[in-house]
């Protein structure tokens, strides 16, 4: 999925710091879509042909479907996942797994992103790369959605922010409430404001929340006032055709969906195994999660 093929991120990628921050979103999208196509159903079925098989490597740190996270030495793991429709190959980074100060990987794998910013001279170098200040200042950058706004948004799209479980995967609301620190909330006693930009941990947490939010959004979006016109809402997917519903996808995105969005949305769902309701449900979830991640990495 190239940048040009992704209108949601296309406008972002043209712009200044957004280019750097968008790198946070791309792994999430690639990650999500890869899962969507590959339809790995988790660890329950080790024989599931769609689950990628780590082939290992001398560095031993190849992570399932994410490529190597960068071992501390040697060669990162290599993971290949193939289906009839797509093939993704991700190679773990060699050695420390980092290049140019990035956290892991490189531009040839799926988990290349900048590590947490902080060094002011690195920021200044980044600014210089973004262009002259007279231009840079006139372009939108990529600020994260503030913690409180994220909660408001999820709630308005049908997520129960008070849901908790004692065992098993935590629901989105619980991840949200327990993820304050990762999501960069303020620590005023330490004279620290809420962070304006994602850290690696924060972006990862955000994607986790979106993945868990997706089934709740699918189940409830029709009944959410924010997603209704004239008091009437629509489902996320057409119950007969399983196609994405324009109004609901728009409501998830926060702006009217484009033709490309609809095409991508439908494409992802259509890759469900024929006659497999479970797989179809997974595809729908991952589709919504992918759109949430792509649309709301930046405010």
């Amino acid at each position: 999925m190239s940048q040009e093929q992704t209108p949601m991120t296309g406008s972002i990628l043209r712009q200044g710091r957004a280019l750097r921050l968008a790198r946070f979103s791309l792994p999430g999208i690639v990650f999500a879509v890869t899962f969507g196509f590959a339809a790995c159903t988790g660890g329950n079925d080790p024989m599931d042909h769609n689950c990628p098989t780590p082939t290992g490597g001398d560095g031993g740190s190849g992570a399932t479907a994410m490529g190597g996270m960068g071992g501390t030495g040697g060669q990162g793991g290599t993971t290949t996942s193939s289906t009839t429709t797509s093939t993704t190959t991700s190679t773990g980074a060699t050695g420390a797994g980092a290049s140019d100060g990035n956290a892991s990987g490189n531009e040839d794998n799926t988990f290349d992103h900048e590590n947490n910013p902080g060094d002011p001279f690195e920021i200044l170098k980044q600014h210089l790369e973004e262009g002259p200040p007279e231009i840079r200042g006139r372009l939108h950058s990529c600020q994260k959605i503030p913690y409180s706004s994220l909660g408001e948004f999820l709630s308005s799209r049908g997520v129960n922010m008070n849901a908790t479980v004692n065992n098993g995967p935590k629901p989105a609301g619980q991840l949200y409430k327990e993820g304050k620190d990762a999501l960069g909330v303020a620590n005023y006693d330490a004279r620290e404001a809420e962070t304006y930009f994602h850290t690696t941990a924060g972006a990862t947490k955000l994607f986790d929340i979106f993945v868990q939010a997706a089934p709740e959004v699918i189940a409830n979006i029709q009944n959410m006032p924010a997603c209704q016109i004239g008091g009437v809402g629509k489902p996320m997917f057409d119950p007969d055709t399983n196609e994405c519903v324009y109004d609901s996808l728009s409501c998830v995105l926060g702006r009217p969906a484009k033709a490309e969005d609809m095409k991508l949305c439908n494409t992802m769902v259509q890759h469900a195994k024929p006659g497999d309701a479970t797989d179809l449900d997974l595809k729908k979830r991952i589709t919504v999660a992918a759109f949430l991640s792509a649309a709301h990495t930046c405010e």
Partner: protein
Amino acid sequence: MKRDLCLVSLAVAIAAMGACTKDDPNSLLQTGGNSGTAGCPPTGNGGEGGDAGSGGDGGSGAGNTMSTTGEGGSTPVEDPVLAARKLSYTEALRTASFKLVGNAPTLEEMMSIQTLGSEDEKKAKYEELVDKMMSDVRFKRRLVEFWRNTFRQAGAAAGNMPSRDTAPTFAARIVFEKKPFTDLLLANTNTCPTFNGTDFVDGNCPPNGPEGMETVGILTDPGIHAQYYGNLAFRRVRFFQEVFACRKNPAEYDPNASMPPPIEGCEMAQTYTSPWDFTKIGGHTNTGRIDFQDCSSVICGNCHGTINHRAPLLANFDEFGKYEPEFSVLLPLTGTPPAVYTDFLVEGEPTGWKANLPAANLAQLGQAMTSDEEVLQCAVTRVWNYAMSKGDVVVDSASLAPEVIAPLVQKFKASGYNLNATWRDVFLHDDFVRF
């Protein structure tokens, strides 16, 4: 090719920095046109008609053109990056909605723009929705949060600690109720309002000093002084500098600063760049107990020239933000003695916001700050950076070329410092609605 251009730009920028003989750290952060970096060329542009000149102030709101200043004069050219942006009122609505009311727009709001035929109609509808959002109670909440983050403080009163909510609440109220931004540094009543989640409620700060002590905006806010309590009141100085001038120290930079007379044991390896008289700063040549005249490595006076002229004005507030008759901040020396005036400056040396903006007391400090062009520009910069997702101008090194917001600053001043109008202008700005 693109990479090559980047490298060339970087090389030019580095060369420009290297050629700057003054060691003002802010020269790395600032762009052209700031008096504080007069000795340094604008970063990475200008020169012989390269891609981005630093001249002209016709940038913002004027479409996609900019001026290229070269030896042959100024010629408007279309910048390809700006030209590549696409006008989108629905995309702008999404971003504006998150920023103004803390949530994505509703489906009805999105479609109310999407279904319109012409761009003019869409623009009018977008403006209507921005106005609606700016009158929404949720905008009050966002403003409170914005100022809490800007001031990096919040929290209810507890024990001896005063409320740290009052200052950000006061600032939010000023913006929402379209009061002059200068009230933030000048008002003498209702400077400690509260916010109940829906409405701002009048409130004066609790008795915070000797009877009859004048309130001076947030300059006397007990929460700020408690939050930023520290040795020699330097943390408070830094707070007001960074929040209101949008620059790290050194606050002032004078390329023509007078070098001090030769001082024994202090052969300066670098240039003294503060406009203040070096010999009047507390140090080893006078009675200062901490040597701010030290120049064995860096020139401390380059920052402390200004810092030490401001700190005495803020040094009477104790750790709970209460104004005391005597200085109530300490020195980081054995026994942590209280600071005295001569630790900052020699006796008789007056205090001030800047060398050309004297201030003998807090009321005058407020007057000096509100008459400082840099402070006014900073207020607009913060709104712009918030809207354009640039991050904090200081913490995130998100400095802004002055020409980008020059028309907004002019309008801000002409409006009587109505920052609410600036918020509206920014969210309707031609640059904001292009992606």
